[in-house]
């Protein structure tokens, strides 16, 4: 592996949008710097033999320098399973008809109100039964505006009278850079 220079050298390795604890995913990207030349196939095989159960490398692509810039990540697709008091209190089309969805959002400098509506690009709910539903959403992520799934759930409660979400669990489906899948 290649290491950074300086006082405390560490491996050159970047993970795109590291997941929070408790969120599952089917799409993750990482960039690793190597000091020697390896074939894409060898990197894939060796990583897969070392990775713990549940994580496997699907594809490896050799890059030159700055190509495939994680800073260009702008959207993420989540599938979130929700348990609530009553799914009939929620309507995804009505929810998306709101011109603004103002909720408290955590930022580096504390909490402040933010209108998240412009940052929800796609949103639909599949109701499973009276208390369970699955929400599919494509929302803003990355350096320009980072929207968390939980913040969207807050808006769902705030803008749907009486809705109380008792449990949620998210799964990341896609990470998009410049609106396109990275690999």
């Amino acid at each position, binding site marked *: 592996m290649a*290491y950074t220079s300086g*006082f*405390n*050298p*560490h*491996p050159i390795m970047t993970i795109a949008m590291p997941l929070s*604890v*408790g969120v*599952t995913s089917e799409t993750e990207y990482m960039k690793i710097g190597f000091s020697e030349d390896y074939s894409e196939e060898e990197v894939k095989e060796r990583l897969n033999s070392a990775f*713990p*159960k*549940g994580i496997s490398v699907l594809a490896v692509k050799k890059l030159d320098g700055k190509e495939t810039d994680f800073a260009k990540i702008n959207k993420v697709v989540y599938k979130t*399973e929700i348990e609530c008091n009553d799914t009939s209190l929620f309507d995804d089309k009505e929810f998306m008809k709101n011109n603004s969805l103002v909720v408290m959002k955590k930022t580096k400098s504390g909490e402040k109100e933010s209108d998240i509506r412009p940052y929800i690009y796609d949103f639909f709910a599949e109701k499973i039964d009276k208390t369970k539903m699955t929400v599919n959403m494509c929302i803003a992520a990355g350096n320009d505006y980072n929207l968390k799934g939980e913040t969207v759930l807050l808006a769902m409660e705030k803008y749907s009278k009486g809705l109380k979400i008792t*449990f*949620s*669990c998210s*799964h990341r489906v896609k990470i998009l850079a410049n609106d396109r899948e990275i690999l």
Partner: protein
Amino acid sequence: MAYTEKDKILMKVQKPTRYTGGELNSIVKDKNSVDCRFGFCFPDVYEIAMSNLGMKILYHTLNERPDTYCERIFAPWVDMEEEMRKRDMKLFSLETGDDADKFDILGFTLGYELCYSNVLNMLNLSDIPLLAKDRDESFPIICGGGLCAYNAEPIAEIFDFFMLGEGEETINLITEEYIKWKKSGKKCKKDYLRAIAKLDGIYVPSFYDVEYNSDNTIKSITPNEDCAKPKIRKTIMQDFDKAYTPETLVVPFGEVVHDRVMLEVMRGCIRGCRFCEAGYAYRPARNRSYETLTELADKLLGCSGYDEISLSSLSTSDYTELRELTDNLLKITEEKKIGLSLPSLRIDNFSLELMDKVQKVRKSGITFAPEAGTQRLRDVINKNITEENVLTSAKMLFLGGWTNVKLYFMIGLPSETDEDVLGIAELSKNILGEYFSIPKESRAKNINITVSTSSFIPKPFTAFQWSKQDTRQEIVRKQDILKKAINAKQIRYIWHDNKTSYLEGVFARGDRRLLPAIIEAVKNGCKFDSWDEQYKFDEWLKAFKTCGIDPDWYLRERAYDEILPWEHIDIGITKEFFMRENEKAKSAQTTPNCREKCSGCGMRAFGAGVCCE
């Protein structure tokens, strides 16, 4: 996807990865195809448990056995416990998530006295009756080990048995006997206990009756079963270099206290500090060869991906092959960009050169442990270092660019006077003086000295096992003297809370009569006593009062002819040796270390390590 009740709780508590399991290198087995399911219980939170070397060794030792599945069971933090109790969830293991009461054997590590309340709380959370006599064959066998097991009398009646000494072999033997007993139909728990009581190092508390005198001292400790030995001797790994040691380690998801590869270079200590239970209890000092260690380091780093490795022992400077080992390790660490840390290097044979090689850039803090402020008192405790040693090494450090120095002392040591306490301030001032004696251009800026005092607690199996423990008032008075005496702005004084030391002292030399108070305190919410913000001192005092116990009584000075609560336990060192050491302490005479000259402590009978050099 289906979510369990546990998954739902995990989203609500701090640090959920404390409870998920599934870490890299954690052991996955089919629980239905083994004969024995062993729950390795650590009575503290995940980050502490996962830093414990004993846990790591025994977890993998047991899992080497195809007939046994050893899983980890740790104390949930208070927020998790609250959620669990709300839902009637029982204590569970990290590997399979199964309830603790489904296991065959639950083995608790007793590393320090303040974990006792957590042991009880964990059993409570598992719906397992606390007292051994109330548990029939349908409950797991409850056993304990670790340093405190040498005198765990305050909670002895909870345990079916204790393993005394180093458990790598013993734990295999008791598991084999368990499997035999289980296959024969698990008829009578006593049959199993009788079978293992014959083994070395096994102490079955229910096989011993304790009688008391009218003055509350112990009248007798008598075996009540033929198989119960009058004295139970600890076990050791005879050939430590060849002893089993895991070549893999579990890598936690979240950060833990010792988040690195730990290399146990040596077991035991040659020094003979008179206050130190570990120093005596792990005798004789035994080395692991540097070749073995180099190979081990390579494997552990490779399988874990850790970028830091540290050498672990009671006194790494006394490891005879330190140069060869560090030369080898530096080759690995430089190539792989891995950090090497060297804790517990003594200042009297401190190697600045080594420190320099290891910490090429970062000048992190250095800790000295002179333990006492005056030469007289250092001689009393047999801490064989002089003020000159300390000052010389301090100067070397300052010249080498270090500016962050921590000094550890104890207050309340036997025979301590106010002059000795003031000596702590004096020594710290002299160290600061060394810094200022260096010309400005040759020393780094911003000197920072931290003086830290803990309170001395007389421990069983030490030369001071008969000593009086200072009262809380006396400790506070001495702390105040020191606060006033330390006035340089470059020196910061921090002191240890006297309330936890008080309880630790009561338990350390406690007997079986303390159990009702511990049960009462746990009932009233006492747990995590070693965590300042969780410690409920008033509840403890109330519990002692309710049970008619005077805790101060356990801190008094004891006579040589008094029967001590641990009289039936044999750690290999004779009582005569401890008496000799205590007498020498009274006249401030030192004892040479084991390598210089054998002082006849009794350990030679084990025929291992430094005793045979």
